[in-house]
């Protein structure tokens, strides 16, 4: 009797909670669709769009625990250019707004930390969770300690049961995901500012970072039909199954962006499949289709190149220090043999090797930069760095010197953090669909922060005369843009490259083409060509190298002058080493003149002295990496425009 009355009261309570605004989402979807339809789509990309595809808010379990109290709404406002107040009370604003933003909160324990924080203590049965609950309420220091414990537990597969329970997780997640999707639809202004739906899949077997950001092309009507996919143990194929299922069920589209390959201890770009077996053509095709773009640079280091793999490249060590010591929580040290599976240039080469064997290149990816900031603030600029997380935001004086909680004892320090980068996208309009499609065709590039405008076209008949006319149109009509593929027809490829400096930033030092190729005997090669640089008359190449551009940085004041370098560098370049039948890739690396890193700005602002090692690293050459253009045989089976569910169908057939 009493039981049934209580049941009825429960129902009433639950119903009143669920009632809030189902019609709101529909109205919102209609508004977004109308606004999208009104945006003009250009014939070809005219203006590069800037964004961050990897931002965490207080919905991320670690961000919240580290003290972030800004949510997705503040993140959106900040990204579109509004001023917000950081979690520690500092006023924060971007010098220039971003065009798009993907809030990628960790799917594992999405909102769990906030829930644990808000939960009635009475109902927390698990002693570990109860302790974390108390620590979070006690003080910021204790809260950070709780998160460090949590990340260790996740990396060693020993999270409390309540965090892993799939059913309990689902309801928490449903509520937060739903609210999040509604919010980003409300802030979507097609043509002006585009929030994309997505999440971070935090696959981390044994602490080896195999994280992916998952991006959706779609709005609430589709994305609300699924929940973010979680699971720390993998294999990665399960994520692709999830993506297939989403596309099959909703007619939507999704892609995944691997990041921090530099912390994967060799697992991100293996020569085998995820189970350790030989990589099949099907597996390779699936990986390439699902993961068309990789994050090359972010706060936790730069994964483009490593001096061990590229000993002839004097610029290869950028952003490697500290991160090269081991995996993410430093539970396992790194050995040199692991590096080849971690750095993107080598992965692009491995792709050629696997392609030679199987006919399909699994690692035909484009490159972007992002922040991976855990502060809700997508800051990629050195002079406006709000920290990896709230525990090292700019209010904290000696953040550059502090050992980091993860792996304190083996030497990763605050100064090893980069300021983060941005994703540059050559889209035909600022809409979800156009940004997503540009990612799929890899017409994107990475920068370490500065907003350089970089164009790259590959073809067979470009000449210097093309600069005289509408060379962008010529690039598209007589060649392919970055991310594209040229079919080998027995003629050396020619590239049209233009790099324009950030109008608010530093001049450019040089533009390089990085070529990787494979010879018929299966041997991989790479070569970095300086194709154009500033003051070429006064700076002639000596023994195959262009002399250093110089350094105007004043260490006392953290300032530089644009008295060296050039505002724009452009060139038409033909590969001098071309041999018919050798598959190759070509990507562009642009180097700016030396400028202060965030550590030097901090040192001057707070009047602190950096240790020698950090000081040597306090000035750097910011850079951009374009997606490659590949040269090779015609693809045996051209990629269909839509391949939703392709793999599932193929597998059932075969």
């Amino acid at each position, binding site marked *: 009797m009493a039981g049934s009355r209580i049941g009825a009261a429960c129902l009433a309570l639950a119903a009143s909670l669920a009632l809030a605004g189902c019609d709101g989402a529909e109205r919102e979807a209609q508004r977004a669709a109308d606004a999208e339809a009104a945006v003009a789509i250009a014939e070809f990309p005219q203006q590069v769009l800037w964004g961050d595809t990897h931002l965490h808010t207080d919905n991320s379990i670690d961000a919240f625990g580290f003290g972030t109290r800004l949510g997705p709404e503040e993140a959106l*406002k900040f990204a579109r250019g509004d001023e917000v107040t950081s979690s520690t009370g500092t006023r924060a604003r971007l010098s*220039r707004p971003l065009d798009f933003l993907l809030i990628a909160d960790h799917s594992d324990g999405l909102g769990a930390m906030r829930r644990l924080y808000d939960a009635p203590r009475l109902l927390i049965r698990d002693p570990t969770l109860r302790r974390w609950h108390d620590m979070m309420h006690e003080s910021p220091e204790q809260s950070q300690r709780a998160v460090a414990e949590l990340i260790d537990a996740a990396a060693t597969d020993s999270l409390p049961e309540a965090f892993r329970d799939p059913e309990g997780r689902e309801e928490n997640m449903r509520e937060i995901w739903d609210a999040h999707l509604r919010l980003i639809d409300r*802030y979507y202004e097609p043509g002006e500012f585009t929030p994309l739906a997505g999440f971070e899949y935090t696959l981390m077997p044994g602490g080896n970072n195999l994280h992916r950001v998952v991006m959706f092309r779609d709005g609430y009507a589709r994305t609300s039909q699924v929940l973010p996919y979680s699971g720390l143990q993998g294999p990665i194929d399960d994520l692709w199954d999830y993506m297939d299922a989403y596309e099959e069920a909703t007619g939507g589209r999704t892609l995944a962006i691997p990041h921090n390959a530099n912390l994967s201890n060799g697992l991100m770009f293996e020569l085998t499949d995820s189970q350790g077996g030989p990589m099949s053509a099907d597996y390779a095709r699936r990986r390439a289709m699902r993961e068309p773009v990789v994050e090359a640079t972010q706060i936790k280091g730069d994964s483009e190149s490593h001096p061990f793999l590229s000993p002839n490249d004097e610029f290869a060590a950028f952003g490697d220090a500290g991160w090269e010591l081991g995996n993410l929580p430093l539970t396992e040290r790194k050995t040199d043999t692991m590096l080849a599976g971690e750095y993107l240039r080598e992965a692009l080469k491995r792709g050629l090797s696997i392609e030679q064997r199987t006919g399909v290149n699994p690692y035909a990816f484009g490159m972007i930069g992002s922040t991976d900031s855990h502060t809700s603030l997508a800051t990629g600029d050195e002079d406006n760095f709000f920290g990896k997380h709230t525990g090292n935001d700019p209010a904290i004086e000696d953040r550059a010197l502090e050992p980091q909680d993860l792996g304190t004892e083996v030497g990763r320090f605050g100064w090893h953090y980069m300021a983060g980068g941005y994703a540059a996208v050559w889209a035909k309009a600022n809409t979800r669909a156009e940004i997503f499609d540009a990612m799929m065709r890899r017409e994107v590039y990475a920068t370490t922060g500065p907003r350089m405008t970089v164009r790259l076209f590959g073809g067979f008949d470009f000449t210097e005369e093309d*600069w005289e006319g509408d060379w962008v149109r010529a690039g598209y009509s007589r060649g392919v843009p970055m991310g594209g593929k040229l079919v080998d027809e027995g003629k050396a490829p020619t590239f049209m490259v233009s790099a324009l400096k950030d*109008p608010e930033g530093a001049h450019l030092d040089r533009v390089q083409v990085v070529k990787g190729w494979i010879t018929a005997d299966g041997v991989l090669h790479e070569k970095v060509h300086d194709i154009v640089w500033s003051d070429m008359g006064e700076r002639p190449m000596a023994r195959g190298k262009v002399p250093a551009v110089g350094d105007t940085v004043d260490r006392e004041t953290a300032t530089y002058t*644009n008295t060296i370098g050039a*505002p724009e560098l452009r060139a038409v370049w033909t590969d001098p080493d071309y041999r018919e039948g050798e598959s190759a890739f070509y990507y562009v690396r642009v180097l700016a003149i030396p400028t202060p890193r965030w550590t030097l700005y901090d040192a001057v602002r707070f009047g602190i002295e950096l240790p020698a090692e950090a000081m040597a690293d306090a000035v750097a050459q910011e850079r951009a990496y374009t997606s490659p253009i590949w040269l090779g045989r015609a693809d045996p089976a051209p990629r269909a425009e839509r391949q939703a569910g392709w793999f599932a169908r193929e597998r059932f057939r075969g």
Partner: protein
Amino acid sequence: MTLPRWTREPMVHFLAAGAALFAVFAWQGEPADPASRTIDVSLEDRARLALQYERTMKRPPTDAELDTLTEQYVREEVLYREALRLGLDRDDAVVRKRMANKMDFLAQSMAETVEPSDEALVKWLADHPERFAREVRYGFDQRFFADRAAAEAALGRLRAGGAVEGEPISLPLSIEDASRSRAAEQFGEAFVGALDGMKPGTGWLGPVASGFGWHVVRLRTREAGEVPPLAEIRERVENDWRAETIARRRDEAYALLRGAYRVAIAR
């Protein structure tokens, strides 16, 4: 139906919410005085316990489990009141923080769900035009030069009606109807700042400095940014209204309470 203005005041809402909460407690027989030794567990209380259990465990509790939960609740209530009697709440950082959070939440919760009226949004738009005004838009021609002297020489030639291409750089020679932020993204803030100081239709001017070098510029059009009607930007206005109203209610509620205190801080 129009309500008097005072009913829209957040402070009134806050006080009303407080009064309602008090009424609920009074109606439930919850003792206003923690010193009371009567504990009534109502059906609503038990329903709440059952629902919380269900949210965690994904199934309703059995009767036995609900009795256990109720027993736990009573036990905690007893110990809680005894702790209050002993004054244990006063030196516990966790309790203090948690209760402070609850007060904040109370103040802002109403603004999270309420649907603002059109009038409220029209007023919001009128009060904050600068947040919603469209950007200024420019149409101009420009020629680029690395050196100031070359730009000055070119300016003379252009004014005399000559044709000048400028030095090569990947910037458009002519821009139609670009928003301020787009123009700033391409040419930089200093350049766009200089456009603001020019009068449209006055021919070639300059040289103007940018991050790239020097430009001579002919500003053709400058359209002031107007405030669009509410219907076109309702979502933006509502987002802004909601976010700010939540923050303001929280601050005002605090200010109201804070006003009743005299705080002395030893320095």
